[in-house]
């Protein structure tokens, strides 16, 4: 068995998947990934709290029923997390298919993390020179991954590509590592990084991540606006700009309350910034500004 520590959980797996951290050792909270020889059922139709999206042209449905989480991807890929939350069974025609492996280590893994009680931001995160994490949230197509690549080129380390599990810890917020993998636009490969597979218009790429959770030092909301010069604007602390970036599954009142709490804790403890830039502002320039948010220059000095 190999272990994958990602999104604040640990998965143990017999399959040879990219990015395993090490051999698995017994861990109380680990989820074992096991094949299911017989067919797994579809997620229950019409069950409350279902979530749907499309991934690589195939519909993905996740639904909870009677204590178990069921996930379907297309016609023939199924996953089911048992009510004890210890075993994830899978049924798929080709577990060597990189698209299926990416689904497992990305969407399925973070859905399990959510099911196990974690809360997550739809954001990328990097670790800067002082060891703190900066998260970047943006709509699809705005350039979050390209900016993350520029931050890595400027010396930052990846914490997570697209989903960041966050938790309140003391007076601050911790950001958990994702898998050591990035989905990079096909036209912008990361220099010196191993591409596992070309999937659609993306390169599934191995990128080392920080091993441990890091204190979140800034959340940057990246937007594109014609004429905007890429200035970083500090926002008033409020959970309202944070809430749209928290993943909303499962949809229960208890979890909505917890998401409100984590958004409020994050707003109280972590500086929020809006970074608005025209498409003419280069990723390198944006990276410089983001690093400036993580490590602001001292505002005063007192001579001896």
């Amino acid at each position, binding site marked *: 068995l190999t272990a994958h520590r990602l999104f604040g959980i640990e998965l143990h797996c017999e399959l040879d998947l990219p990015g395993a951290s090490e051999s698995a050792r017994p861990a109380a909270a680990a989820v074992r990934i096991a094949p299911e020889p017989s067919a797994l059922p579809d997620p229950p139709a019409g069950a409350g709290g279902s979530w749907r999206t499309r991934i690589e042209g195939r519909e993905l449905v996740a639904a909870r029923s009677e204590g178990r989480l069921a996930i379907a991807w297309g016609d023939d890929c199924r996953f089911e997390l048992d009510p004890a939350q210890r075993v994830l069974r899978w049924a798929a025609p080709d577990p060597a298919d990189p698209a299926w492996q990416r689904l497992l280590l990305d969407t399925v893994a973070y859905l399990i993390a959510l099911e196990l009680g974690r809360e997550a931001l739809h954001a990328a995160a990097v670790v800067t020179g002082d060891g703190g994490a900066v998260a970047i949230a943006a709509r699809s197509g705005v350039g979050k991954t390209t900016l993350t690549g520029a931050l890595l080129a400027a010396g930052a380390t990846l914490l997570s590509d697209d989903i960041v599990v966050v938790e309140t810890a003391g007076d601050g917020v911790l950001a958990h590592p994702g898998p050591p993998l990035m989905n990079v636009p096909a036209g912008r490969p990361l220099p010196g990084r191993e591409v596992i597979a070309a999937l659609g218009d993306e390169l599934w790429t191995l990128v080392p991540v920080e091993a441990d959770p890091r204190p979140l030092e800034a959340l940057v909301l990246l937007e594109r606006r014609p004429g905007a010069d890429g200035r970083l604007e500090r926002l008033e602390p*409020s*959970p*309202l700009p944070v809430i749209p970036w928290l993943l909303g599954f499962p949809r229960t*009142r208890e979890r909505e*309350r917890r998401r409100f709490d984590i958004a409020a804790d994050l707003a*109280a403890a972590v500086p929020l910034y809006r970074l608005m830039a025209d498409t003419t502002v280069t990723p390198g320039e944006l990276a410089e500004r983001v690093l400036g948010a993580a490590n602001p220059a001292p505002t005063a000095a007192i001579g001896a």
Partner: protein
Amino acid sequence: VPEQLTDAVLLDRSVRIPDHVVQRAFVAETVVLNLKTGRYHGLNPTAGRMLEVLGEQGKVSEAAATLADEYGQPLDRIEADLLELCRNLLERKLIELTDDPG
């Protein structure tokens, strides 16, 4: 909001923040979430403080007196503002009446 809830009647009533409402105060605003509707509401700092005092004291007239002292404003002016806020909060089910009018 019941139509018969005149200013005088409402001042004499007690209110509370129901369990399905959570709130957090920040410098520039208080953010309130109604878990039943899933809607978020932003209150300016004065309205946020009024909600906090209503949650602590219950009775609207007593909350008005506390706030008049705190802000150094005439009681009738604070009462008018607080009553308007109470009606808005009741309409959005962010507070509820707790006592029978008797």
